[in-house]
């Protein structure tokens, strides 16, 4: 039997690692309540804030879209970035390291597997917006919308892979970093309001987080009239930047994972447990 090629190992690893995620979610469905239904209520809270201060109805749409994308951001932070820490604690990480596969393949598998649950949550939030809060959209361009969404996800998960390299080295300390990246990112990326409200400079800095430009572009494509006064950059520019971020983060993630693995191996941290 001939040896499998690197690409064969890569794709088998992706499928192999995605499998536990998909199957695990089927076997214990309480996540539907905790990670789908309950977050809907949180999104609703922000909708009611806007209602309390008599915001235009499009702002409900902004919140709903932000709430949907929150699912992906949290998935990246907690089910990807911190995952190597959990794998290390259970002894799986060392088995991944000694296998002739790449950590990026493992992470990609986790991302694809996790995306099932995340997408269910995102769709539930959108359904809430459309059915309960009667959000009205006018789609400017479906291809552009899909393009923005997909590029945002690729860039976002690339960023997640970059973060996960930190966890190889820093263990539990890096989970506090993940915690730190929740509310501040919700703020500067404009999850619940147009990012242009932060001023050009802050919004530009925040654009390094793919969701910032992704949300802004998607809002422009879904609520063009309201976003005319609140948009940050033209959709085509945002698409271009997202494409560059995708390539950049994936490349950086590859380098960082390799470097962090080497560093962890030198410092003996790959198998340290109980942090």
């Amino acid at each position, binding site marked *: 039997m001939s040896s499998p*090629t690197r690409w064969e*190992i890569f794709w088998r690893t992706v499928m192999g*690692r995605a499998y536990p995620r998909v199957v695990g979610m089927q076997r214990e469905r309480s996540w539907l309540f905790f990670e789908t239904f309950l977050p809907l209520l949180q999104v609703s809270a922000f909708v009611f804030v806007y209602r309390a201060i008599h915001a235009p109805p499009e702002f409900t749409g902004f919140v709903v879209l932000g709430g949907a994308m929150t699912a992906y951001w949290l998935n990246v932070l907690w089910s990807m970035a911190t995952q190597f820490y959990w794998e290390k604690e259970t002894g799986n990480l*060392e088995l991944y390291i000694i296998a002739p596969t790449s950590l990026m393949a493992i992470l990609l598998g986790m991302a694809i597997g996790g995306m099932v649950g995340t997408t269910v949550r995102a769709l539930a939030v959108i359904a809430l917006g459309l059915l309960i809060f009667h959000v009205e959209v006018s789609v400017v361009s479906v291809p552009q919308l899909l393009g923005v969404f997909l590029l945002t996800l690729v860039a976002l998960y690339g960023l997640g892979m970059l973060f996960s390299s930190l966890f190889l080295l820093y263990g539990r300390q890096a989970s506090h970093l993940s915690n730190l990246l929740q509310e501040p990112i919700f703020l500067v990326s404009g999850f619940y309001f147009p990012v242009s409200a932060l001023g050009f400079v802050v919004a530009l800095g925040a654009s390094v987080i793919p969701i910032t430009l992704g949300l802004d572009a998607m809002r422009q494509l879904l609520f063009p009239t309201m976003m005319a006064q609140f948009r940050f950059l033209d959709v085509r520019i945002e698409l271009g930047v997202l494409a560059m971020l995708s390539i950049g983060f994936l490349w950086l993630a590859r380098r960082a994972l390799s470097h962090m693995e080497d560093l962890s191996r030198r410092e003996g941290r790959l198998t340290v447990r109980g942090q």
Partner: protein
Amino acid sequence: MSTELAVKTEQLSRVYKAKKREIIALDRVDLEIPTGELFGLLGPNGAGKTTLIKILTTLLAPTGGRAWVAGIDVAQNPWEVRRHINMVSGGESSGYGLLTVEENLWMFTQFYGIDGKTARTRIREMLEIVGLADRAKTKIYHLSTGMRQKMNFVRGFLTNPQILFLDEPTLGLDVQTSHTLRGFIKDWVGKRLDKTVLLTTHYMYEAEELCDRVAIIHNGRLLACDTPGNLKKRLKREVVFRLEVTAIATPEKLFQDLRGVRRFSHAEVNGHTELHFILDDENALPPILTAIQHSHGELISLEKRDPTLEDVFISLVGRSLKEGDGSAEAAEGEP
């Protein structure tokens, strides 16, 4: 056994720097393991066995020296090394609780690029061999420790590695399960001349039963490396006695200055003191018996034996693996 080397180390060292001191986990270890050998690494807890395994399996970088596995430098080209190896550790808790035995094993085969059909066939066969076939569809969080270890055992062999590292694989398992797994290891290596196994253990009988050659490691240093028979022959000229006496307060003071006592170790067993002596010759025995009498101890049993690996260990290290502080100073260590 081939003359090609499966594992080679040259002055391999690993030093950990703690706040105010350095911990030498491995101290200039030189080792050569030819292909086809079942090689044992024997030593107490903290001797450096796991550190050596971690370096050879690319989990840890050495701080000095070099190591090659399947002819590939572990520090320079770790990815290439991984194509040729696998590892099983004792007391493992790896795997995903919500997946079944079969699913966990299948997932790991995918990391080695094994196609689905081959993977499933191997899994079925291996589970049958270790007696887990009826648990293939059981979620692993329902398994007992022994069953989980069997599953991890299978995981190590499934990928048909050229070199397999077994780090205390029977740790914490019951007698029956340990016996089954040892039989499995012996059979696997015996039938495959191109496969090599490096087994670490602190069970003497395991090393004697399984290994073609054994290296004794202590405080990060390799003290001896040879076949179990040759290692025991080192003590051919000495005489080995095992005594059981009623409890003695300070055996070190009693025996350390007696002529003819090369090494001794002691352990408290069921309220009695068990003493192992390596003597120059039988004439060294009467003073020992007199010393016991003077300390108001009573001799319960006395046995003259052929040297075992444990005696070899005691002669090199100055104490037994089970502990009981030494007598004479520890050996300087020569291979």
